[in-house]
C-alpha cells in the first residue's frame, strides 16, 4: 500500500464538459429537494399545503385505514360486558395503564357496563382541587411542549413546526364582520359601582358568590365555584341543559363558500333555566374583567373582536403562547375549562386519526393539523383564547358538552386537510354572546372510537 501510494504516478487530465455539467445539475437538484423538505409548500392561494411528511414507517402507518380501525375499536369497546367480569377486567386495565381507582366516581366497578364507559369515567367531586392561577390544566396528562408562538408557527417538537392558520383555520374570504361583542346595556343584569353586588333578574348576588370567596347568605346557584377557605375551588361538573341546534346561517352565503373552507352553521344553545345561566355567565364575565351592564364602546369592541377571533393579532404588550398536553390511555379523559373564557365558535376539522403519542409527535410532521380535531375559539381576559382537542386512533370521538350537534369520526372519506365546518355560539349567552365557561368547568371529553 505504501509503495502504491508513493510510487504510483499522478496523471492529471481534464474531465469531459458533459460530466461536469451533470454533476452541477445533480448538486442543484439535491439542494432543491432539501430546501423543499424544509420550507413550507404553498398552494395557489398562498396557503400551506398540509401533507404527510416523515420517515418511511410514518407513510406505512398513513396507508392504514385508521378511521375505520378507530370506529371498530369503539364499537368493540361499547359492547356490554358480563357483570362478573367487569371488576377483574377494569382492575387489569387500571393496573396496565396506571389508573387510580380510588378517585373514580363509582367505587363499584360493576356499574360501568363496558370498557368504553369506564374509559369515559367521571371522578369523585373534589378529586381535583383547582388552583387560583389564571391558567390551569384542562386535563390529566403530560405536558409535551409549551412556549411562545413566533411568526404564526407552533412548535410541535424541537425543530418541527406547523402553521397556526392550519391548526385553527382561517377566516372565510368575504365573511361578514362579526356582531359587537358587548351587550350595550342589559337590563337583566347590573353591576354596582363598587363591584360588591350584582343584580340578576332582580335578585341580588354577592360577588363572593359569583366569583368565589367567603360564604354568602344570598341565593346559591349551581354552576358557580364554591371554594373552601384554604384548599381552593373544587372540580365543577356542570351539566349543560338544553340542546344545540345547528342550522345553516345563510343559505346563499353558504352556497358561496368554497368547499375547501367548508360550510358555516349556527349552533345556539338554549338554556332551560335562564336565571342559573345568567348567574353562571355573570360569574365568568366578572372573572374576565367584563362589566356586562356598562356601556362599552362599540368600535373598540369590534376592533377587539376582530383581533381576538383570528389569533393573529395581539394587543400591544401581549404575545401568543401555546401548550400541548398529551392524555395517555389510562388518564381521566374528560377535559375542563383552563380559565374563565367565552367560546365564540368551533371549527371541526375532519382528518386522519394518527396516534398522537410522543413517539409519533417526534416523527410525523404536521401531526396536529393532519388529525381530526375541534378548534374552540373565543376570548378571555387577555384577548384571544383557543383550545383544540385533537383526536387519535383509539379516541376518535371528541365530545363537546354544550354542542350536541357535533359528530366526529363519522363514516366517509375525509375531505382535504384544512377543511372545516364552523358553528357559532352567539346565542348561548345573552350577556357574553358565546358559551361562557368558568375555570375547571367540565367541557367535554374523548371517547373510544
Amino acid at each position, binding site marked *: 500500500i505504501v509503495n502504491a501510494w508513493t510510487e504510483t504516478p499522478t496523471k492529471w487530465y481534464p474531465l469531459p464538459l458533459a460530466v461536469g455539467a451533470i454533476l452541477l445539475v445533480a448538486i442543484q437538484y439535491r439542494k432543491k429537494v432539501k430546501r423543499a423538505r424544509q420550507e413550507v409548500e404553498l398552494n395557489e392561494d398562498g396557503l400551506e399545503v398540509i401533507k404527510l411528511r416523515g420517515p418511511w414507517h410514518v407513510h406505512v402507518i398513513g396507508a392504514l385505514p385508521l378511521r375505520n380501525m378507530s370506529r371498530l375499536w369503539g364499537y368493540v369497546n361499547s359492547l356490554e360486558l358480563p357483570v362478573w367480569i367487569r371488576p377483574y377486567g377494569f382492575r387489569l386495565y387500571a393496573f396496565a395503564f396506571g389508573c387510580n381507582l380510588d378517585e373514580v366516581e363509582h367505587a363499584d366497578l360493576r356499574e360501568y357496563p363496558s370498557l368504553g364507559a369506564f374509559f369515559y369515567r367521571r371522578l369523585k367531586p373534589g378529586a*381535583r*382541587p*383547582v*388552583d387560583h*392561577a*389564571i*391558567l*390551569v*390544566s*384542562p*386535563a*390529566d*396528562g*403530560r*405536558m*409535551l*411542549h*409549551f412556549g411562545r*408562538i413566533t411568526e404564526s408557527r*407552533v412548535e410541535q417538537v424541537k425543530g418541527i413546526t406547523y402553521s*397556526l392558520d392550519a*391548526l*385553527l383555520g382561517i377566516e372565510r374570504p368575504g365573511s361578514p364582520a362579526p356582531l359587537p361583542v358587548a351587550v350595550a346595556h342589559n337590563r337583566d343584569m347590573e353591576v354596582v359601582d363598587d363591584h360588591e353586588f350584582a343584580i340578576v333578574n332582580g335578585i341580588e348576588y354577592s360577588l363572593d358568590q359569583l366569583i368565589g370567596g367567603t360564604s354568602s347568605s344570598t341565593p346559591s346557584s349551581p354552576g358557580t365555584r364554591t371554594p373552601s377557605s384554604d384548599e*381552593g*375551588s373544587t*372540580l365543577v361538573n356542570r351539566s349543560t341543559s338544553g340542546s344545540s341546534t345547528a342550522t345553516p346561517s345563510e343559505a346563499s352565503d353558504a352556497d358561496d363558500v368554497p368547499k375547501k373552507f367548508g360550510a358555516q352553521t349556527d349552533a345556539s344553545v338554549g338554556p332551560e333555566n335562564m336565571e342559573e345561566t345568567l348567574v353562571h355567565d355573570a360569574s365568568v364575565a366578572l372573572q374576565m374583567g367584563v362589566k356586562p351592564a356598562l356601556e362599552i364602546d362599540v368600535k373598540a369592541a369590534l376592533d377587539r373582536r376582530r383581533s381576538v377571533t383570528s*389569533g393573529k393579532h395581539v*394587543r400591544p*404588550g*401581549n*404575545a*401568543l*403562547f*401555546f*401548550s*400541548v*398536553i*398529551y*392524555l395517555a390511555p389510562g388518564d*381521566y*379523559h374528560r*377535559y*375542563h375549562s*383552563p380559565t374563565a373564557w367565552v367560546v365564540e365558535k368551533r371549527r371541526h376539522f375532519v382528518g386522519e386519526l394518527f396516534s*398522537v403519542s410522543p413517539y409519533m409527535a417526534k416523527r410525523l410532521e404536521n401531526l*396536529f393539523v393532519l388529525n381530526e380535531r375541534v378548534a374552540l375559539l373565543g376570548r*378571555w381576559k*387577555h*384577548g*384571544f*383564547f*383557543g*383550545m*383544540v*382537542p*385533537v*383526536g*387519535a386512533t383509539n379516541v376518535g370521538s371528541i365530545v363537546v358538552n354544550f354542542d350536541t350537534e357535533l359528530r366526529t369520526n363519522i363514516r366517509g372519506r375525509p375531505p382535504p386537510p384544512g377543511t372545516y365546518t364552523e358553528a357559532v355560539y352567539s346565542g348561548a349567552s345573552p350577556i357574553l354572546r358565546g358559551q361562557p365557561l368558568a375555570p*375547571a368547568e367540565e367541557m367535554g371529553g*374523548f371517547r373510544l372510537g
Partner: protein
Amino acid sequence: STIVLVFEAPEDFEFSVHAGQKVRVGQRLGDI
C-alpha cells in the same frame, strides 16, 4: 388524545411547568 391551547397573554406570562411533567385538571399551568 391531545389538547392544544393557543392563547394571547401579557408578555410577562410564565409557565410554571416543565416539558414532560405530569399535570392534572386544575393544576396551575402558568400565571402573570
